């Protein structure tokens, strides 16, 4: 108990001292997670929209596949991407392994199904009358799609926020593809795992506190947008 209390107090002091190492780790985490969320949203939102809005053969099976991908463990994704970007594999010449780009690729695979499935859910919740009203007022397919997208915007933003919350807290992909290089690919979660291995708890607890505060903030925003969706 004493260990926890001492570590906690020291961790708080470390955070407020604006320690450069802590700031660097937090920055790398936010940067990598932000970029992967951006690209996953760029692909996942239109994908989810097209699946939800369109009617085509195999739609149900595609949704089942996306839902299944939600359960993909991060280590499996890490292993999968590793097999493509390791020195001796087909993309080895690109020197991606143990870079931030490698983490971003893995994280995109992790959250793309989250963004797509939550976008599908957000679009599916939109009242059918919006589509009918837009059509009867003379809107073409693109204009009708814009109406649906606009009405579902809070749900879509919630999907993006949920995806960011998932990547910021993941450890498997960052560890396997990033390599936990100090100041370069060391994220909050990989740093915490390393500090735990070393038996140094202060930095780990400090990062844990920051991660929790960030998660709280993300959930707060997520809740706000979900509330707007229900309203």
């Amino acid at each position, binding site marked *: 108990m004493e260990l926890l209390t001492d570590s906690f107090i020291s961790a708080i002091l470390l955070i407020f001292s604006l320690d450069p190492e802590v700031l660097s780790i937090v920055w790398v985490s936010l940067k990598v997670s932000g970029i992967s969320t951006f690209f996953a949203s760029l692909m996942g939102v239109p994908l989810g929209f097209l699946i939800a809005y369109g009617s085509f053969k195999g739609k149900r099976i595609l949704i089942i596949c996306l839902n299944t991908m939600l359960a993909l463990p991060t280590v499996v994704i890490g292993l999968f991407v590793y097999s493509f970007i390791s020195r001796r594999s087909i993309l080895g010449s690109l020197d991606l392994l143990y870079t931030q780009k490698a983490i971003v690729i893995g994280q995109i695979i992790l959250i793309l199904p989250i963004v797509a499935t939550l976008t599908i859910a957000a679009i599916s919740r939109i*009242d059918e*009358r*919006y589509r*009918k*009203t*837009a*059509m*009867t*007022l*003379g*809107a*073409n*397919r693109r*204009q009708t799609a814009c*109406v649906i997208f*606009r*009405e579902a915007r809070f749900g879509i933003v919630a999907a993006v926020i949920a995806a960011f919350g998932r990547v910021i807290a993941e450890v498997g992909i960052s560890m396997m593809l990033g390599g936990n290089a100090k100041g370069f690919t060391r994220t909050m979660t990989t740093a915490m795992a390393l500090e735990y291995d070393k038996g140094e708890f202060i930095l780990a607890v400090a990062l844990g506190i920051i991660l929790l505060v960030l998660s709280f903030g993300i959930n707060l925003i997520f809740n706000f947008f979900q509330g707007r969706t229900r*309203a």
Partner: protein
Amino acid sequence: MLYVLSKITRKYGSRTVLDIPLMEIEQGKIYALLGPNGAGKTTLLNILGFLEAPATGDIFYHSTPVSFFESYLQNLRREVVMIDQHPILFTGTVYKNVEFGLKIRGIPKKKRGIIIEETLDLVGMSDFVQAQAHRLSGGETQRVALARALAVSPEVLLCDEPTSNLDVENQAAVINTLKQINEQRKITIMFTTHYMYQVSSLAHHTFFLDHGKLATT
């Protein structure tokens, strides 16, 4: 004739919900469509509004056969507007709602403003121009939906039970507006209703629909 429907059927699964050998609608008239729940009234309005294709049969609009291809239908839909029994307003202000149909028709902003003002005035909703659409009452929503439809100057207005959820005051407002736009703008109107007094006070012709079959008076 504005519309001629010939041997129209519509099926949901194996159930035939509409079976009309012949139906003719004249331009500039008001038609009432009566019938019990599930008689096929809304389905018929959807077909007349080019929102739903019949299973079999032909539709002639201005003596031209209608082909149910999306690109072709879009032009027809710009002439025929349908108002739902429970109309839904887009998120945003009343102004934005009424503006929607005008904007997608490429009408300049200044002209849009004038039309919106006139149309909201016609339905008695001028004071609500900047109100949030989702905060309106049922009666106000119905009137804004009517204004949104009228703003695009349709040739035909299809109203699915336009007064079903309204109090007496709002019912009278909607009925008066329909009568006024028919007289002044010569808009052809078809509305479904359960109220006989509306039929006698508003409609020039009445259709009865029962189990998808039509009878005329």
